[in-house]
C-alpha cells in the first residue's frame, strides 16, 4: 500500500524524529520556558492569586510580570553573594577531589591484579546509593555522639573525646565536599577507566621500548588521550556540584547559620519553603548561567586547543 505522497529525504527524516522532538519539547523545553517565565514574575503562592491556565486539569498560574526585579533583588541580597562564594568553593573543591580520586581509582583498576573484577564491581556501590542514604550513612559514621569514625578514633586512643565535624561551618562544608566526592568519584573512575581501556597497548609498548617510565607514560600518553574524558568528567562534576541539594538537606540544612548554604539550597528554600517562586527560579537561573559559562571555559581550556587543525 502506498500513501501516494512523495517526501524529500529531509522532510521524511523530520517526520521520523518529530515524535521525539515533541516529547522533548513537552518534558524539557516547556518546563524550562515556564520556569524562565516565572523568574520574571511576582510569584508568592501564599499571597498572590490571579489568572491561570487550566491544562489537563492542572492549574498553571500566570503571574504578574515584574521584569528584572527578581534578579535585581537577589543581586542586592548579601546572602546571595555569600552563598555564591561558598558555592564556588564547594564546586572547586568537589571537582578537584572527585576528579583526582576518580583518576587515581581508575589508574589502580587499570592495572592487572588478583580480585580486579570484584573491585571494579564494588567501586560502583557508593555511586549507586541514593544520596539520602549516603547522607544518613555518613551521619552514622561522623556523628559526634554515636559516629563509628569517632568511636574508632577513640578506641585507637587517637582522640581524647570526639571530633565535632559539623560544629564549625567551614568544617561542615568540607565534610559535604568529601561525602559528595565519595558518592560521585566512582562514576568519574568508571569514565576514566573506559578511556584508558580504549588506548592501544601498542603505544605503551613503544613508549616502554623508548625507555619511558610509568609517570612519563602517564604524562605523555595516558593524560593527553584522556582529555575528552577529562572534559566530560569536569563538566559533569561541575554541573552536579552546582546543583547539589540532597546532601545539604540530609546533613546540615544549610547551617550552622548560613555556613553551608549554597546557591542551589538558597534557591530551593526561596521557592519551596518561602513559596517565592519568582526569586527562587531567578536564583536557580543564575546557576544555570554559571554552569554554561564554566562549560565554555572548560571547553577552551581542555578540549578546544587539542582539536586537530582543519
Amino acid at each position: 500500500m502506498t500513501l501516494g505522497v512523495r517526501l524529500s529525504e529531509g522532510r521524511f527524516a523530520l517526520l521520523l524524529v518529530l515524535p521525539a522532538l515533541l516529547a522533548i519539547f513537552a518534558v524539557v523545553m516547556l518546563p524550562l520556558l515556564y520556569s524562565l517565565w516565572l523568574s520574571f514574575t511576582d510569584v508568592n503562592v501564599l499571597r498572590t492569586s490571579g489568572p491561570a491556565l487550566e491544562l489537563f486539569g492542572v492549574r498553571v498560574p500566570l503571574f504578574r510580570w515584574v521584569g528584572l526585579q527578581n534578579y535585581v533583588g537577589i543581586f542586592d541580597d548579601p546572602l546571595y553573594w555569600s552563598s555564591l562564594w561558598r558555592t564556588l568553593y564547594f564546586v572547586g573543591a568537589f571537582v578537584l577531589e572527585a576528579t583526582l580520586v576518580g583518576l587515581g581509582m581508575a589508574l589502580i583498576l587499570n592495572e592487572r591484579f588478583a580480585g580486579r573484577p570484584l573491585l571494579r564491581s564494588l567501586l560502583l556501590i557508593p555511586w549507586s546509593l541514593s544520596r539520602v542514604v549516603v547522607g544518613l550513612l555518613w551521619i552514622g559514621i561522623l556523628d559526634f555522639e554515636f559516629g563509628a569514625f569517632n568511636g574508632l578514633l577513640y578506641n585507637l586512643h587517637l582522640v581524647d573525646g570526639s571530633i565535632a565535624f559539623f560544629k564549625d561551618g567551614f568544617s561542615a562544608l568540607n565534610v559535604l565536599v568529601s561525602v559528595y566526592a565519595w558518592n560521585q568519584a566512582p562514576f568519574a573512575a568508571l569514565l576514566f577507566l573506559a578511556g584508558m581501556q580504549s588506548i592501544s597497548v601498542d603505544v605503551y609498548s613503544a613508549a616502554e621500548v623508548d625507555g619511558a617510565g610509568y609517570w612519563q607514560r602517564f604524562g605523555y600518553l595516558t593524560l593527553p588521550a584522556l582529555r575528552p574524558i577529562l572534559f566530560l568528567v569536569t563538566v559533569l562534576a561541575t554541573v552536579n556540584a552546582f546543583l547539589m541539594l540532597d546532601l545539604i538537606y540530609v546533613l546540615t540544612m544549610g547551617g550552622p547559620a548560613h555556613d553551608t548554604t549554597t546557591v542551589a539550597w538558597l534557591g530551593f528554600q526561596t521557592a519551596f519553603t518561602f513559596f517565592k517562586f519568582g526569586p527562587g527560579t531567578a536564583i536557580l537561573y543564575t546557576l544555570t548561567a554559571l554552569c554554561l559559562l564554566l562549560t565554555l571555559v572548560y571547553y577552551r581550556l581542555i578540549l578546544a586547543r587539542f582539536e586537530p587543525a582543519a
Partner: protein
Amino acid sequence: MPQFMSDCFSEGAQVFDAQNRVIVDQEPGAARTMERWQKMYRTGLVNPEVLTKTSSTDVHRLFWAGRYAYHTNHSYYLKTIAGEPQNSKLAPKKARMAMYPGTGATYMWTDSYVLNARTKALEDAWKLTRFLGGNLNGDWYVQRQWCLIAGLDNPYPEMYEHPEIVQSYDRWVDLKLLRLQSTKGKVIGAYKEPWYAEYDTKALAIVHDIIRGGVTVPKGLKQLASLQKSLA
C-alpha cells in the same frame, strides 16, 4: 525556635505583640535566654553539633544521650522513654516531671489542618478537617488515637479527663502536672501569618549566630525584630 520561645515565655518575655510583630529586642527576658544559651554552648553543656541537626526532633534526641547538663524533651517523647520497654531501658517507669522553670509558661505546639481557598469539595473537606482536628462525631476519635498511640499533648482539655486516656497516661506521665502545664501554654497567632515560614527559617540563622557569639545578644535580637518587619 520552639525552644527559644519556650525559654522566653518562661523568662516572662513576649516574643510577639498583639499584632504578631516580633518584639524580642524590647524584652529583657529574651536577652537573658540568649545569654544563657551562649554560655551553655561556649562551656560545652550541649552537643557541639546541635546547630546542624536537621530537625528539632534530632535536637531533642541529642539531649537523650544524657551526657549534657542541659536537658529538654518534648513531653510526648516521654511515652517512648518511660512507657515503651522495647525502645527504652528506662521503661516501664513513670516519668518524673517538673514544671517549666521561671513563670512556667511554655510554647505548646499542635498541628492544625487548614482548607485551601480553592477547595473544590468544600463540604466534604470541612467534614474531614473536623474529623481529623476536632470532634466530628462527639467521640474525639482522631484526637483520642493520637493520645493513646503517640502520647501527644492535646489542645482540648477534655482529653485529659477521658477515662481511657487517663488510664493510659497514668502509666508513664504525671498527668496532674501535665494538665497543669498545659494551662500555661501560649497560643502563637503569628503562625497564621503568611510571612511566618520564611521568618522561622531565616531567624534560625540569626539565633545560631547569637549562640556562637558571632553577633552580640542585643544586636542579634534587633536583627530578629527587623527581619520580621522586612517580611511582614
